[in-house]
C-alpha cells in the first residue's frame, strides 16, 4: 500500500533509478528533482542503491582517467612497425 502511494506521488523505483542517471549528468527540472529527493528519502532500497550508484560512478571515473598499460614492449614495437609500413605505402 505504501509503495503504491509512493509510486503514484513520487515516481516508481524504476523511474527513480533512471532519474538518478540523468541527474548524474544534468540538472533535473524542479519537479523531477523534488520527487526524486522525496522518493530517496522514503524508499530504503533506492536509498541504498543511490549509495552504490555513487560508488560505481566514482570507480568508472577513476578507471577512465587512469588507463593502465596493456601492451608489452615487443608488441608495441611490432605495432609501430606495422603502422609505419602502412603509412610508407601511401
Amino acid at each position, binding site marked *: 500500500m505504501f509503495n503504491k502511494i509512493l509510486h503514484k506521488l513520487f515516481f*516508481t523505483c524504476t523511474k527513480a533509478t533512471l532519474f538518478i542517471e540523468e541527474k548524474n549528468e544534468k540538472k533535473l527540472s524542479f519537479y523531477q528533482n523534488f520527487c526524486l529527493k522525496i522518493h530517496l528519502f522514503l524508499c530504503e532500497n533506492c536509498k541504498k542503491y543511490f549509495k552504490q550508484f555513487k560508488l560505481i560512478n566514482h570507480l568508472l571515473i577513476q578507471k577512465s582517467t587512469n588507463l593502465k598499460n596493456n601492451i608489452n614492449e615487443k608488441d608495441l614495437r611490432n605495432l609501430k612497425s606495422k603502422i609505419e609500413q602502412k603509412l610508407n605505402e601511401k
Partner: protein
Amino acid sequence: MDKTKFINQIVDEYTQVLYNRAYYLLSNQEEAEDIVQEVFIIAYNSIDTFSGKSSIKTWLFSILNHKISDYYRSKYRNTTKISLDNYFSKDESWKKNQLISECNLEENSVFDDKEFISIFENCIESLPQKWKILVKLYYIEEKKSEYLSQELKITTTNIWKTLQRSRLQLKDCLEINWFKKNN
C-alpha cells in the same frame, strides 16, 4: 616540418596511449591494433587540416573516439529493448529477491583496495560488449550524452537506459563478489 617525419614522430610518441584507450574500450588486442592503425592513416590523410588549436594528443583521441563510434554503429545498429525484469516487478518497485547492501563510502575506503578494484574491473568486463563500450565511452567523453547520442546515432534516453541497466548488473556483480563476503 616534413609530413612523413612528423607522422613518424607522432606514431612513436602516441601509439601506446592510443592503443591503451582502444584496448580499454574494445577489450580485444587485434581490434584495438586495427583501430589504432586506422587512426594514424586518417591522421596522415588529414594532417593538412590539423589547425593546431587542440593538442596533437587531443586530435588523435578525437579521431580514435570517432572510429570507436563507427565501430559501435556498424556492429550494434539495431537497438534491442533493455529489460529490467530481473530487478523490478510489474509495479516497478524492487523485486523482493533483490539484494542491495549498505555501502558506506566514508568508512573503509574501497577505492584503494586492490582486490576490490580487480573485482570491479572483472565486473565491467563481464558486461555485454554492447553496453560495455557505451559505458566506457560515456565516461571517457566525460558524461556528455548529447554528444555521444550524435556519435552513436542513439537517443539520450537509450544511453541512460543502457547506463541504468549496466549499473544494475555491476551492482549485482559487486553484491555477489564483494559486499556479501565483506559485510
